[in-house]
Structures are given as C-alpha cells and as structure tokens.
C-alpha cells in the first residue's frame, strides 16, 4: 500500500477548507490589527528615543513568551474582561476561540512591524526630508508623501516576517478554541495519527511559504519601484486569501457544538455524541482539542453546547474540593453545584477514567507490589512520569499525603508516550488513566488505592446553560447514558491509539456506536 492511498489523507483533505479558512481568517485579522496598532506607534515614536526604547523592549518581551503560553493567557484575560464589561455595561462577548487567538497573534506580530517601521523611517536620507520641507510640505504631508513611501520596502519586510510568524503561531490557537491548521497537529498527536500531524505541518508550512514569497514579490516591487512586481504580488495575496476564505463563507450555523479535550478518548466520545445527535436529526459538529481549563469556561459561556468531563476533575478544579466522597454522593453533590451555574449534568456514560499509578505487570509481581501502599516502600528508588497537569493537581498532593510517596525523580510526558515509556523501563511508574487501552496492550497493571486518595472519575455528560431546557437535545443524548462500560471504552481507546486507517476518532466512534447497540 503506497503512502498516499492511506484513507487518512483523504480524511485530512476533507477538513482542509474548514481548517485552512479559519487559519487564514484569524491570521489575517491578527496581522491587520497588529499593523493598525504598531505602524502608528512606530510613526509616533520614531523621533522619540525614550518611548521608542520602551516600546521595542516591550515588544521583544512579548516575543520571548512562548506562543502557546501567550495564546493560553489571553483566554482567562478575556474571560475576566468579559465579566467586567457584563457587570459594567451589560455587554458580554465570547472569550473563546477567535477573539483571544486574534489578540494574542496580533501582539505577536508587533515586534517586526515596529522595528522595521522605525528603522525604515529613521533610515531616510535627511536631505530628502529637508527637500520635502523646502517644497512646502507640512510635517504630515512629508510623512505621507515622502517618508512612508520611502520606508515602505523596509516596512513591507517587517510585515512579511510578521505574517510568517503569525501563520506559524496560529497553529497553536487550537487549544483555546480557534479552529486552525493546528487542529490536524493536535488531533494527530493525541490519536497518534501521524498522517494528520504531517498534513497539518505541511499545510501550514506551505501557506507560510506562499505568503512569504508573495509578500516578498511585493517588497521587491516596492524596492525596485516596479509596479508589475508589486501588482503581481498583491493579486497573488488577494487570490490566496479569496481561495482560502470563500469555501467556508456563508456556511450556515453549525448547530450543536460538541467539545472535546485534547486526548484520544475525548476525540472518540465527541465524535460519538455528534453521530448520536445527527442520528436524532439534529445538526452537530465536534470542536476538538480544547484545553482542559478552557473547555469548562467555554461550556459555561455557551461557546460549546455539550462535552464529556470527569466527576473528579470538576470536583477538584471547579468546586476546589480536596476531600473525597463515594461515587454516587460525589456526583449528586456535583450535580447540585453545577445546577447553580445552570449547567446540566445529564448523567454518566458508565465508565470511569481515573488517574491510577501504573507499572508493568511483571515488575509488580517481582517486587510484590499490588497497591500504592506497597509501592511507597520502593518509591525512593523509582522514577515517575505523569501528564502535563498531573503533578500540579490536588490528586497528586493527596496521593503523596496518604501514602507518603517520595519518588527519586518525576517527569512530565505526552500522555500517549507514557505507556510505552513505562513498558520499556524508561520510567518506573506512570500516572496513567484507568480507561486507557494501552494498559492491557503493554501488559501493565493499575495499582489499587486502598486509602481512596484518588477521587472517582466517572465520565459525565454536561450541557451548556442555554441548553438547560432543550428537551430535544436531552432526549437525543439519553440513550447513551450508562451504555459504555470500562472494557468497551478501553478497547475503543486501544483502537484509537493504533496507527492505521481504522484509528481515526470517526472510525472508532462508528465502532463504538455498533458495539453499544446503536442506541
């Protein structure tokens, strides 16, 4: 089978108009905003060394913030701003998706435009500025008729750099809810779909390259005062923007939006929920790859309509509770607390995806370890790996406290790589997930938690406040409740973790759909 006959390529291609269109839209808006802010700033500060220095230093600092962090920061920032404007002016806006992504990217684009703007304007032959004054230009006319046109090639070079940065960084806006070419990369990484990762990288690289070349043509045209080159470049950019934006324009609203966090199980479940709604005659789309802290806020604000979360996660992160309660009690209390925020906890899917300390079965037998209490005796000689959030979560603190765990070393890892790492002995223990199919695949064992330090993590279905009274939606979803047991979910996750054509979330969701009896 040749590389390109893999059906995942055509699957990837089918998402291209949506992902590319959104990618171009957010990049374009960010660049326009960045330009609208930084060009006037460059003009205002070009002859004032002190503010110019401060401005350039600030822009440089922004540049040193990693793109992912910058984007992630804008979400809570806007959330707070939205709360303020709602309280003060009664105006609310969505802090999710387009707006935070555009603002963060605009900030990111400012440094090259500012720097080149100032350099370009300061680099003009003083004799020409004098000539402008001498022929009777006002300061403003001199700027518009002489200085800006002469600085344009240098400014254009800055815009070109900014465009390439923005297009590249826009792939990181997926976790805050902005669809982009990053959706391929995030989904691909989480589901080990390397075709998607490769496709996403290629698509964004090609886009950046095309924009870079076309802007380069404009820049060269301006530098050589060749209208032909400038015109060709401009027409090229316009054609590129039109070609990427038009296919997604005028598309009707997408109906119900099913959210999904950034791991395979969530991709599969969101596809399943979407299929269920469509089977009930409701239009629905999945919006996947949302950060764990973003997704609850998105639901609360109504940017997504429904998603699957886990009881223990909400218990700790939203209710800020550190005590542990039995499953049913915890869910009942959670339901009451969520209802106060008008969020509907519709019910449980039937399985639990809890954190568990996982070691290879053989090693456990050799060391005589069955529970976390047994492990604690060996911990000082062992290393542990967890996902990016585990070590800062209350569960980890609770585990350490309950069992006096002290490991030799701890590492953070991409969740999908942890299981292979512990199986190969690269780390000794991992904080895995009970519903992960890889536990069986790699012959690992999840250790018992006799002191119940880890709260229950039942998969629960949440609905946005605006869907609280939507009986049609609720009736459509109810057949799924209690239908997915842990064995089924493990097998589904194992399928999704495969690296072949049948491992895409859509295909696995179809399998799961059949498996639970087409509810």
């Amino acid at each position: 089978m040749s590389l390109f006959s893999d059906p995942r390529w055509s699957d990837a291609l089918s998402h291209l108009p949506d992902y590319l269109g959104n990618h171009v839209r957010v990049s374009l808006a960010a660049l326009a905003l960045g330009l609208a802010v930084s060009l006037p700033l460059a003009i205002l500060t070009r002859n004032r060394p002190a503010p110019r220095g401060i401005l350039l230093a600030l822009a440089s600092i922004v540049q040193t913030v990693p793109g992912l962090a910058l984007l992630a920061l804008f979400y809570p920032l806007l959330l707070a701003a939205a709360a303020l404007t709602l309280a003060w002016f009664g105006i609310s806006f969505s802090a999710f998706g387009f707006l935070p992504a555009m603002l963060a990217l605009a900030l990111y684009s400012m440094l090259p435009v500012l720097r080149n703007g100032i350099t370009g304007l300061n680099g003009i032959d003083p004799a020409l500025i004098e000539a402008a004054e001498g022929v009777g230009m006002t300061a403003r006319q001199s700027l518009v008729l002489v200085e800006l046109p002469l600085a344009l090639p240098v400014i254009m070079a800055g815009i070109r750099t900014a465009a390439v940065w923005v297009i590249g960084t826009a792939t990181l806006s997926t976790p805050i809810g902005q669809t982009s070419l990053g959706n391929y990369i995030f989904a691909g990484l989480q589901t080990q779909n390397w075709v998607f990762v490769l496709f996403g990288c290629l698509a964004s690289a090609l886009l950046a390259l095309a924009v870079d070349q076309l802007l380069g043509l404009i820049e060269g045209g301006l530098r050589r005062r060749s209208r032909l080159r400038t015109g060709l470049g401009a027409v090229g950019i316009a054609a590129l923007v039109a070609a990427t934006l038009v296919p997604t324009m005028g598309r009707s609203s997408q109906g119900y939006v099913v959210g999904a966090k950034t791991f395979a199980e969530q991709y599969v479940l969101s596809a399943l929920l979407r299929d269920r709604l469509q089977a009930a005659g409701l239009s629905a789309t999945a919006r996947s790859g949302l950060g764990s802290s973003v997704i609850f806020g998105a639901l609360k604000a109504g940017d997504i309509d429904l998603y699957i979360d886990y009881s223990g996660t909400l218990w700790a992160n939203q209710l800020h509770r550190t005590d542990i309660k039995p499953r049913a009690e915890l869910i009942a209390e959670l339901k009451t607390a969520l209802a106060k925020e008008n969020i509907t906890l519709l019910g449980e899917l039937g399985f639990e995806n809890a954190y568990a300390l996982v070691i290879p079965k053989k090693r456990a037998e050799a060391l005589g370890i069955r529970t976390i209490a047994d492990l604690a005796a060996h911990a000082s000689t062992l290393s542990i790996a967890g996902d990016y959030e585990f070590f800062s979560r209350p569960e980890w603190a609770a585990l350490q406290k309950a069992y006096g765990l002290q490991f030799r070393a701890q590492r953070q890892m991409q969740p999908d790589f942890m299981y292979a790492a512990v199986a190969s002995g690269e780390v000794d223990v991992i904080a895995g997930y009970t519903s992960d199919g890889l536990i069986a695949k790699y012959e690992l064992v999840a250790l018992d938690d006799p002191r119940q330090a880890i709260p229950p993590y039942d998969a629960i279905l949440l609905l946005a406040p605006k869907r609280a009274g939507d009986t049609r939606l609720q009736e459509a979803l109810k057949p799924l409740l209690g239908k997915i047991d842990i064995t089924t979910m493990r097998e589904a996750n194992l399928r999704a973790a495969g690296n072949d054509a049948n491992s895409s979330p859509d295909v696995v969701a179809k399998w799961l759909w059949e498996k639970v009896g087409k509810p």
Partner: protein
Amino acid sequence: MPSRPMIGYAHVTKSFGSLRAVDDVSLDIAEGEFVAIVGGSGSGKTTLLRLANRLIEADGGTITVEGEDVQNVDPVALRRRIGYVFQSGGLFPHLSVADNVGITPRLLGEPGAAIAARVDELLELVQLDRAAHRDRLPEALSGGQRQRVGVARALAAKPRIVLMDEPFGALDPLTRDALGDDYRSLHRKLGLTTVMITHDMTEAILLADRIAVMHSGKLLAQGTPAELSNSTDAYVLELLRTPRRQVERLNALLSQSGAA
C-alpha cells in the same frame, strides 16, 4: 525713497550651540537681482539662505520677504511661494519627473490638468524632452538632467524668488556651464529674484549681479565683482585671486597652443 528689498536681512544672528553660524548680518536683495553668496564650508552661507524661507529660524534680527517680516508668515505658505533648488537635486526618488516637478502646485491644491500642463511647460523651459523624461524616475536621469528637474520643480508654483543651495556643485564642468547659462537666462526672462550659494568665486562672478562674501558667520563684503575687486579685505582678495589666476593661466595656455 529707495524701493523696498525683495529679501532683507537686518542684523540677523543664528547660533548652533556655541557656534555663531550667522553673526549680525545685514543684506538687502533687490527685485530682479541675482545675488551669489560665496564662502567656504562652515562660513554660514547655507544657514543664511535657509533663514529666508524659515527652514532655519533666526535667533535675532529681522528678515523680510517682499516687505513682510517672515515671522508673521506661515512657514509652509512661505516655502510654497519661494522656489528652492537643492544641492544635487533633492528629487524624491519614488516620484516620477512629472510628479516631482508638480509637487508644490499639488500641495497648493491646483487641479490635475493645470499641473500637467504646467509640468510640460516647465520641462520645455529647462530644455528637457518631455516625452522622454516625464514619466521617468530620478534614478534614470543624469546629474545634469536631475538638476534641470530640480530647477523646474523650484519654478513650478511661479515663485518670484528662487533660493539655490550650491545647485551646480556636483556637475561636470561642461554641464555646469550650460546649466548656469540656461538658468541665468531663465532668471532674466521670468523676472526672478535669485539667491545662489556657491563656494566657487568664478561661478559667482560669471552668473551673479552681486556677490556677498561670508566668512565665519560674518558678511565680509558685498557688491558687484568690480566693487569687490576694490575691497581691502584679505579674505575677499584671496577669493578673487583664484579666478584671476585661472584666467591668466588659461590665456597663457590657450595663446601658446594657438601659436603652435
């Protein structure tokens, strides 16, 4: 009653930091006159010129243009009614010859068709083939052509006064000579009042009606070439010695070769 000067400097001073660039200079330039200001670099001649259209503001004294104190005139309006020819052209490299020439009328808000007609007229006046040069960029012109465009630009808004800052300094001798003569006849034909800066006394003698000599910010002498030759000032005599010597040597050399 003496006719009022077109440009009048009365006890004008200008300092840059501790340097007195122009030191108590008084000079009247009559209507229709062609005055050359001669001096070495740092003599203050360029500063003196720029004080007239307020590219530089004076510290003390009074400057009048057409009888009006320049302090009472909006500097932008003042510059639009005084032509200015820059050293090596000062043409805007991103504008075509026509756009460069038509810039001041455009700033004055004249209609496009009138500007276009004026540009053609001016190109003819400075003896540039308009079909060949109109739409070219300055970089495609020779030094002499550029300076002709510079002169055309200075004349575009029909000024009565033209200020020239070493206009022909960077040109080869032949072009320089031709351009000087051409400008001189334009000056007469259009009834202009011209102030030209030069460090070249020969050029000043050949073109100007009157010469003002600047040295270290002071106006050392002023008058016709003949009047200047009666000066007792050592620096003035030194300046005049160069063209004299040139003439003598040229005569000697040319008659020798003629005899041969």
